[in-house]
């Protein structure tokens, strides 16, 4: 069954920054935008596996640190001319602070 896990509080993630976590062996990056929206996405660039958590966050996107592909955090899709999509995970911020992420069944 899918389940929601209370991962952290919003303030654990820097504004326009990220944190990494791991579920079932998959590395996941949590991002927080300048408007405090939180997104969870697999921490593997669709290009050559770069760690997206290390990229620069701007509007609702992150620029991969290795070769500057840009991915939308909400959909996981590459922007612009590049093609590719990364697994995203639903996130809910409860009580205005607790970040819950929905993970798939094991």
């Amino acid at each position, binding site marked *: 069954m899918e389940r929601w896990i209370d991962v952290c509080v919003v303030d654990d993630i*820097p504004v326009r920054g990220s944190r990494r976590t791991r579920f079932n062996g998959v590395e996941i990056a949590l991002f927080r935008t300048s408007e405090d929206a939180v997104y969870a996405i697999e921490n593997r660039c669709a290009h050559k596996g770069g760690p997206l958590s290390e990229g620069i966050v701007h509007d609702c996107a992150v620029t991969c*640190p290795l070769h500057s592909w840009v991915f939308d955090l909400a959909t996981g899709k590459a922007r612009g001319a590049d093609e590719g999509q990364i697994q995203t995970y639903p996130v809910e911020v409860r009580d205005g602070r607790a970040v819950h992420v929905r993970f798939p069944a094991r």
Partner: protein
Amino acid sequence: MPKQKLVIIGAGMAAGRLLEHLFETAPDAFDVTLFNAEPRGTYNRIMLSPVLSGEKSYEEIVTHDDDWYTEHGVTCRFGERVVAIDREKKIVSGENGDVPYDRLVIATGSNPFIIPLPGHDLPGVLAYRDADDTDRMIEACKPGAKAVVIGGGLLGLEAAAGLRLRGMDVTVLHLMPTLMERQLDPSAGYLLEKELSGRGITIRTGANSKEIYGKDRVEGIRLDDGTDLPASLIVMAVGIRPNVAVAKNAGLDVGRGILVDARMQTSDPSIYSLGECVEFEGNCYGLVAPLYEQAKVCAAALAGSADQAFVHTETATKLKVTGVDLYSAGDFTDGDDRDEIVFRDPARRIYKRLVLKQNRLIGAVLYGETSDGAWFFDKIRKAEEILPEARATLIFGQSFAGGAPLDPMAAVAALPDEAEICGCNGVSKGQIIGAIDKNGLCDLDGVRACTKASSSCGTCTGLVESLLAFRLGDAFAAPAKKTVCGCTDLGHDDVRRLIVSQQLKSIPAVMQELGWKTSCGCAKCRPALNYYLIASWPNEYVDDGQSRFINERVHANIQKNGTYSVVPRAWGGMTTAAELRAVADVVDKFNIPAVKYTGGQRIDMLGVRKEDLPAVWADLNAAGMVSGHAYGKSLRTVKTCVGSDWCRFGTQDSTGLGIKLEKMMWGSWTPHKVKLAVSGCPRNCAEATCKDIGVVCVDSGYEIHFAGAAGMEVRGTDLLTKVTTEADALEMCAALLQLYREQGFYLERIYKWSARVGIEKIQAQIVDDAENRAALYARFLDSQRNAQTDPWAERASGQKDAHEFSELVLAE
């Protein structure tokens, strides 16, 4: 039919509205008993802010007075808290006795959240929720006395503005980097901060409170960075929690709030609930508009009609501080499926941002001019489709929308002659058109020279170009200009110049005052702006780590597999047995897979795990080694040869000079990386003549070379000048570096900068003008005072950016 007994717990704004609807729809259905913990009936809580500021009296904000309750036969139990509900017997227990009910409504609102800091219970520490809090604040007001407000949200800022109007010296502490971050984006937050600061309110963002102190009452507050702020009044406005205690104890279903269905019914069919205490489909509310909807639905439900249902809708916020125009509504987060329309008028301090999704408006932030707020909000709520023709002018609001759709050209054509185009210089459309016609102007520079329009901040450049195009038709060819990125029409030169001339000191300030077209920039412009701000305001600007590329953010070089490489400084390429031993120990201890001598005379440890970085640095620090900045747009290496110390041809102490240069320049941020070398004689073993700055020692002194390259382009240096003493060589090199720091465009190496501005111009400023050289040198040394802290030591101690080096562990 005998009247049913209706008991209501809480006489707040939701309950007040409920009663009004109920007496309208079913005037004779109920015998009402109304409990309220506050010793009064319903008043307009949201107007407490004008009461605090002295703009209104309490009497003016009462909505239901004694006469109203008498007239409607309501039994008032004010000043009495309900302590329990017995659902089986259907009895409510107040502090002064029980009341039976047929139907019960819980409208207990919410409680202000109090941060449990040491000292939070001292007298003089207040929340801001009800009329009593407001009275206590007014009592505590003494002109000139100090107040601290914790929380830079809606409530906190209204409290701060009110206290300030009463003459208090007010400081607002806000944890986040920008004010009201839940309702505003950083651009609007910046404008708000500027406005409030202008009113004498001190705003401290990123401020984390540690403890409140005082003997018998509050005397001040300390922050976790050690700052001590004396205060005789502290107001906590950091958020609210639904007040669910009574409901929870009675065994009703409660989540964050009391769970209700679309008819406001709780898990017990005889009990209803509404207001800030409820949770509906996962949402809790903190503004009155949705609560008024709930009141309507709840009244209908109580009166037995089932045809009304509450639906969740977006809310809009306005800050009630006289003179501050600010409006935000809906959802204004970014997304791939969304686009934004941004309008900025720096001269009038206006910022507007609309967010659209699938051609529908879903969010709006307005600052400085909010008259269209309600119009936008209406479109958001109705999810009205925005037709492509209407899109271009949507941001100009209602008055523009009725007319024919306009393209930018038609829009300038439609402007009246007296419309102001250039806010800085007060130039109207008529004046510009007049100047074009009279003087036969055909380009932007002509208009600038004749009218001064677009010559100051430059943000009206687009408008002036449209006017030229409108007047001249095809005869006007808009200049192709290289802009910083797609977020702005300005080039690097304009941005650098305006940051200084307009004293812009933060990224949101630059974006607002220079009319950025996006709300928070992109991966291209943010690192550039961060650098320009550091270079322009070395003693003031607070570095924005999130606007730096990962290498500079974590002070190591990212590798293709996500590990990092670590390059310690080796001053002038020298090392010692102790340092080598420490490197060897670190390599063993952390299982570092590769060690390499670099092309720049340093040792590189490759493949370090990110989590290990702080510990690796701690060990290197312990052996006296610091960051080599191998990752930065900053001073990299200073290569040297052995020089007069050992070499039979050496003319000067090239190693010593290299070390002095590196010790003087390390830690400085530059437009691009900077590499130096010092050779002891013209044989040039240190390859000084292909470096950004190269010194070649000769018998009679030092040749200073610059603008070499040996990467993507190979280019021998140009000779800048020759000096006779080591001290002169140091001054000359530092002045050159500082000139580059002040003039270079981001990502422009020294050789490209030199090609752009010209070698002669550079020589004129540094070699020929001794006074200017000395001033550049002084500015460089000044900026180095704050730059020379080892970034590794700060992080190895866990003081800075600890979140970078640890993963979040899931509690599964």
